[in-house]
């Protein structure tokens, strides 16, 4: 394959010995050389590509905690509070008032064939503390004939209209728990938790059918391309639970039209249920042998608790400042040890969802116990989300070789709510403690949990650097990190946690030619402008993928 040299305004490599260049040479999908054009040209015959002459090339962003089900967010009409990017490069505007929600649903209603159920997604009541609960009466303003099903962002609730209640036969006599009632005992349209949500049979069928469908991969890949992400991840991989899907997923990821590498961390058991972890780890080893350059199956994902804004994360004393504490571990500490041991022994790393600091502590304990008997020092097990991890816990993590992948997007999206309603202002300032993690030598990455917030690393970088909330307050100035540290966390830091830093994460000869092509360098712009930097598109394994309109 011939050599191509891309000339650029700047190449930011994240490679210490060779940090900045103005050209990068690519051969056979890999980086041949980086530096000045003249340096690159010494490799002989080549063509020059000046498409990026006025652009800044950085290592392709690596999302180490993503979900391809973000495709579902954009496949249904969107009634979330914040703007959400769509695959075609346009943006679904956030619905900031109930009037916005109703108007958005009216537009969707007008666009839908008669008789189809209208499913909308991502409504979040936490942003409407001064409004009454959303009920069928609101949705009846949209239609009294078409069934409407509004799924909440948490996935635990839905609000439906009177037409849906009537069509599905959900009446005052319904005995399923979770059917919320008005003052007269009639269902008010809110269906709480899966059993009640399942009463909306048609809508539930449509939503659950889409969840694991390989077609989501293609949509997710477009969202990644538009955001500069060249390696994404599915942290709720189902290849161990539903092995029949493996071939279809591999084919979808390997398709040339799918411009992103996908790393799967697979669930050994459905969240909240147990498994034979040795058998699951054996299956994971076999699965990894069938990896391709784009489709990777690494170790295990363990879901160990819930969410902070859902009051289901498990916190150490003194717990939540308002609301009712529903925190609980989703896996017994004894079983955590067995799960970690099974994958650790086979040299596969474990990514553990730990939103609450009590949960993080249980996981750290488990890793320590396993490590004491089996000294794989390069395990890179990861505390995922790590939103409330405490300084003493980071100190242990640093010594035990544990990584942190911190959900910094929360600072902007939910920071005000955490300060006022979940942890209170003092402890909220210490959430997402990126500075503490780095000081304690904990390998750091930052993420979007795509589907929960939009894929793309500029936003988590912006959050980690500025720590500004929606209301404009700086929440925890002492935990800020520099733009360079943030870019490292979003590239090489993430690649490290996926055990892929040999291949990706920096612009270094021998690695895959995976680039994010930006209008400006995140290291040079005003830090408050990092999230607004334009993304031209990506290069993945030497293949150029322009975002729509570029």
């Amino acid at each position, binding site marked *: 394959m011939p050599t191509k040299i891309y000339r650029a305004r700047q190449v930011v490599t994240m490679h210490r010995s060779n940090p900045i260049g103005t050209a990068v040479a690519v051969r056979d999908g890999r980086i041949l050389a980086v530096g000045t054009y003249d340096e690159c040209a010494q490799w002989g015959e080549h063509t020059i590509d000046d498409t990026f002459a006025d652009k800044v090339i950085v290592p392709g962003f690596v999302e180490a905690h993503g979900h391809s089900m973000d495709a579902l967010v954009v496949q249904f009409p969107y009634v979330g509070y914040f703007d959400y990017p769509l695959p075609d490069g346009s943006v679904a505007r956030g619905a900031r008032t109930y009037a916005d929600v109703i108007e958005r649903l009216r537009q969707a209603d007008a666009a839908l064939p008669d008789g189809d159920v209208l499913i909308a997604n991502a409504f979040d009541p936490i942003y409407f503390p001064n409004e009454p609960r959303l009920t069928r009466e609101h949705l009846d303003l949209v239609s009294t004939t078409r069934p409407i099903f509004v799924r909440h962002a948490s996935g635990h609730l839905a609000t439906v209209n009177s037409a849906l209640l009537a069509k599905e036969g959900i009446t005052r006599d319904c*005995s*399923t*728990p*979770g059917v919320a009632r008005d003052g007269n005992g009639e269902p008010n349209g809110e269906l709480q*938790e*899966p*059993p*009640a*949500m*399942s*009463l909306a*049979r048609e809508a*539930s*069928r449509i939503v*659950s059918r889409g969840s694991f469908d390989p077609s989501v991969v293609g949509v997710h890949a477009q969202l990644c391309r538009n955001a500069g992400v060249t390696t994404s991840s599915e942290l709720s991989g189902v290849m161990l*639970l*539903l092995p029949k899907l493996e071939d279809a997923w591999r084919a979808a990821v390997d398709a040339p039209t799918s411009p992103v590498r996908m790393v799967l961390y697979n669930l050994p*058991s*459905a969240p*909240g*249920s*147990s*498994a*034979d972890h040795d*058998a699951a780890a054996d299956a994971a080893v076999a699965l990894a042998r069938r990896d391709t350059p784009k489709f990777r199956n690494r170790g295990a994902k363990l879901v160990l608790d819930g969410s902070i804004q859902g009051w289901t994360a*498990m916190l150490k004393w003194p717990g939540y400042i308002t609301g009712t504490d529903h925190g*609980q*571990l*989703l*896996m*017994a*500490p*004894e*079983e955590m040890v067995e799960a970690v041991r099974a994958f650790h022994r086979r040299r596969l790393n474990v990514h553990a969802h730990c939103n609450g600091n*009590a949960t993080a*502590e*249980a996981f750290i304990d488990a890793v320590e116990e396993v490590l004491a008997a089996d000294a794989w020092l390069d395990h890179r097990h990861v505390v995922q989300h790590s939103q409330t991890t405490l300084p003493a816990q980071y100190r242990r993590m640093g010594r035990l070789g544990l990584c942190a992948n911190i959900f910094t997007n929360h600072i902007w999206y939910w920071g005000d709510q955490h300060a006022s309603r979940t942890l209170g202002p003092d402890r909220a300032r210490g959430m997402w403690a990126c500075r503490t993690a780095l000081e304690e030598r904990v390998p750091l990455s930052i993420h979007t949990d795509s589907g929960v917030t939009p894929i793309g690393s500029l936003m988590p970088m912006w959050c980690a650097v500025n720590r500004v909330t929606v209301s404009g307050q700086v929440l925890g100035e002492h935990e800020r990190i520099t733009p360079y540290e943030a870019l490292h966390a979003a590239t090489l830091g993430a690649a490290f946690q996926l055990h892929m830093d040999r291949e990706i994460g920096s612009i270094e000869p021998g690695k895959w030619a995976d680039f994010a092509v930006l209008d400006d360098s995140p290291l040079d712009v005003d830090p408050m402008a990092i999230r607004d930097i334009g993304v031209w598109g990506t290069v993945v394994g030497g293949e150029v993928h322009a975002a729509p309109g570029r």
Partner: protein
Amino acid sequence: MIDVVVIGGYLGAGKTTLLNHLLREGTGRSTLVLVNDFGTVAVADELVAARDGEMLTLTNGCVCCSLASPLIDTLVGIRERADAPELLIVEASGVADPEPLSHHAMIPGFRLSGIVVVADAETIEARAGHELVGRTVIRQLRSAGLMVLNKTDLVGPAAIERLHDWLRTVAPSAVVVDAEHGAVPVAMVVGPQPEVPRPHGYHDGHAHHHDVHRTVTWSPVGLVDRAALVGVFEDERTGIVRAKGVVRFADRPERREMVQVAGRRWHCSPVDGDGDDALVLIGLPPAFDEATLLDRLAAMVNARE
């Protein structure tokens, strides 16, 4: 309608031991068992009719499979099957709260038979006080209708008596049954079968030496006072462990209702069709006294108009 039994309890309490016991004994009904970990199902080879990946079919009509999808999707799938079972047993994970889990059995097509929680007599008190899992363990105990206090062979009689006292305060709605190696009468776990007429005072505990449980059938002729019947279920002095049957209540005389009792928790759900009203009750003597109980029940029936 598919009856659902939820089996909960903390990791290591003996849920799998109890399940294996049920699978070996059989339930007398077509049964699907959803287990956490397929690998721990231990039954004799001669009981195995077929083994297919993640599904195990036994010669006694039980089918065992592991849970790969969210429970709600699995239940909807089971409901739509042509060969839907009569009984579904769901093994909760070691940290699950069986109470919200049991709500899955209250969707159309299913009805909750009862929540059975297994507790390890040796460790339950320590677990309940544990910093990280104590709250989970307490929630599990509180959700129990029937509680199987397992591994009683590993603690002394005085300790068992103290545990019963403690459990009465922690889990007031549970009826506690002692067990070694999960061996409790199958009907206590999965409920009696009123569909099959049985002789008065029928005793099905043939496999168990120390099993002294009694079964009595009550056939009310007329309408039953709901509050009075509930009063019986909630009264610990009756010694009732389990009950199941169809009756007609005075406050809703137009329909028949299936009543299912586990410990001091009960559920009623309307049933279609006509037939004789009958309630089968299982209890433990001496508190469970047939004559006293039948007298008390008879007093709450109004003659049918």
